[in-house]
């Protein structure tokens, strides 16, 4: 009994998941009945579960941009710390920017993914209210960007590839942030990451909030989880400015082309990492597994390249961003990777379905 209740408390349905929650309720009802009256409803339950899978596919294959934003912000969506705990062996956190402080919105450290040693840098929003406040909702101050750069330099010195996880509404807009040079800190990171002499892989796992996200995601390979988003401005902010009406956020989300699918089509990202049925928050282990497999595969690929070739390729990629969106791109400077196949990355092995961790 209590088991069932626990499950339903944990599930947090989005408003377009009416069909899913209905079936969940029916299944719960049948389970309750079979326990109370000792009747076997397992065939009916299996049938409902099959219908639910169809419903999940129907909804998530046709998610609108605004619905994607809701999924990316889901309160139970795996955060950077979940990846740290489930994916990284032997994590050693490295604190501080040696200058002002230790920004808790960005976590840095050494760790091992598979057999690869990496420098892990990620934005952490925090799960509960207390942690959210401590981590400033994943919105970093200049010292966060400077800490990240310091640790990247360290990685460069010892030839350790850098992997960054992006999940932030944006860089923090506040008095202290301006006093300590938020703009300068981000600008410096962009410049130095473009020439950092180790492979860099960035993965957007939730929200990719404009310059605040870009500040640690200039990379050789930029991937996005299927239902994460990356945008120049929040849909609400864009709606308030261009539509002069904050409630036009769904239209703004659509116009901004902020989903992984759209950004892959625009050739702005390198891969989309598949999420399990019903999105990442319904199966954290499978999500982490897919991301882990992507990182291992990509680190190996990039490590095989000569560092000068890697840097040339990185520069070429950066230099050509958006060139296609100008009339100069129509004449010359066509990127040579136009024939690049659209990649939706799913781990090669069948994903093992593990039970949801009890602590989430």
């Amino acid at each position, binding site marked *: 009994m209590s088991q069932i209740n626990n499950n339903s408390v944990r599930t947090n349905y989005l408003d377009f998941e009416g069909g899913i929650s209905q079936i969940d309720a029916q299944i719960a009802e049948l389970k309750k009945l079979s326990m109370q009256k000792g009747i076997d409803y397992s065939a009916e339950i299996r049938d409902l579960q099959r219908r639910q899978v169809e419903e999940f596919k129907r909804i998530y294959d046709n998610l609108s941009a605004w619905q994607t934003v809701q999924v990316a912000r889901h309160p139970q969506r795996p955060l950077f710390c979940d990846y740290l705990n489930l994916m990284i062996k032997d994590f050693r956190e490295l604190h501080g920017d040696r200058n002002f402080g230790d920004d808790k919105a960005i976590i840095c450290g050494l760790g091992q993914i598979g057999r690869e040693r990496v420098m892990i840098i990620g934005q952490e929003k925090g799960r509960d209210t207390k942690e959210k406040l401590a981590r400033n909702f994943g919105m970093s101050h200049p010292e966060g960007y400077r800490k990240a750069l310091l640790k990247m330099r360290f990685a460069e010195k010892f030839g350790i590839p850098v992997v960054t996880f992006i999940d932030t509404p944006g860089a923090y807009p506040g008095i202290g*942030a301006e006093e300590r040079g938020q703009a300068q800190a981000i600008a410096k990171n962009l410049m130095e990451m473009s020439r950092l002499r180790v492979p860099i892989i960035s993965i957007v796992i939730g929200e990719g909030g404009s310059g605040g996200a870009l500040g640690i995601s200039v990379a050789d390979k930029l991937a996005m989880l299927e239902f994460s988003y990356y945008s120049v401005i929040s849909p609400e902010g864009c709606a308030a400015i261009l539509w002069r009406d904050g409630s036009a956020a769904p239209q703004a989300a659509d116009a901004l082309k902020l989903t992984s699918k759209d950004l892959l089509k625009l050739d702005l990202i390198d891969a989309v990492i598949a999420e399990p049925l019903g999105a990442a928050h319904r199966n954290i282990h499978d999500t982490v597994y897919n991301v882990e497999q992507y990182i291992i595969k990509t680190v190996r690929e990039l490590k095989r390249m000569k560092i000068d070739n890697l840097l040339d390729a990185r520069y070429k990629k950066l230099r050509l961003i958006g060139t296609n969106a100008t009339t100069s791109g129509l004449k010359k400077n066509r990127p040579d990777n136009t024939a690049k196949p659209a990649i939706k990355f799913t781990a090669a092995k069948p994903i093992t379905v593990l039970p949801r961790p009890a602590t989430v």
Partner: protein
Amino acid sequence: MAKAKSQWQGFSLKPKKEMPEGLWTKCPGCKKMLYTKSVSENLDVCPECGYHFRITAAARIKYFADEGSFEEIAREIVSTDPLDFVYRGTDYKSRMAAAEQKSAGKEAMLIGKAFVKGRGIMLGVMDFDYLGGSMGAVVGEKFCCAVEQAMSDSLPLIVFSSAGGARMHEGVISVMQMAKTSAALAKFDENKGLFISVLTDPTTGGVTASFAMLGDIIIAEPHALIGFAGPRVIEQTIRVELPEGFQTAEFLLEHGFIDQIVARKDLRSEVARLIDYCGK
């Protein structure tokens, strides 16, 4: 469609105010009414209090470069509207067309070769009149062209920023111009190129958080608003009134983020001197 409003203001006993538009200008600095011609003859700086008015890209080039020396390049590059951005009964394409009517160039940045006191330079000037000087793919592309031209001709690069942020109509493409322009500057840096970034009122958002803050020397005009987030965004986020002088050029100098504040009338000689010091 709303009916056009009548211009009829009703009868009035008050004498009609005789003030032909444009003859007089109110100074936002000292609040005095100034004879417009006396301002424009003074490089658009208030002769009373030294307030620096925002100026057009054309005026900027006129005031800064040696007379008639500016040779624009890459003028024809325009955006292809990569997202087919449509909003509130209008679209990006028609906004661009309207902006072009208002501004000196065809985009929010003009680049070209010029001379300043006889020294050859590569000059970039952002145009706030073109969609708020926002950076999209064209600004990024032109900036990189300017860097590359400066590199191949061994010229110092001088860029005047005035920007309200990223070009929303181009989505993530505009965010990534920050990385693109910064990467080009990394190459320029390795090439020992001299980049002087001049921040003018206002310089905020993605432009500040990329090339504008990456100058070998960073200069600002007096009282210019310079920041990452706009003051309104900050006020809405922290719900505190912002301190006096917050995000001004003087504030940035105080906090160590710019090298100098230089008045408009001194910019030519200051930049020329700095170029000489760097042996460029």
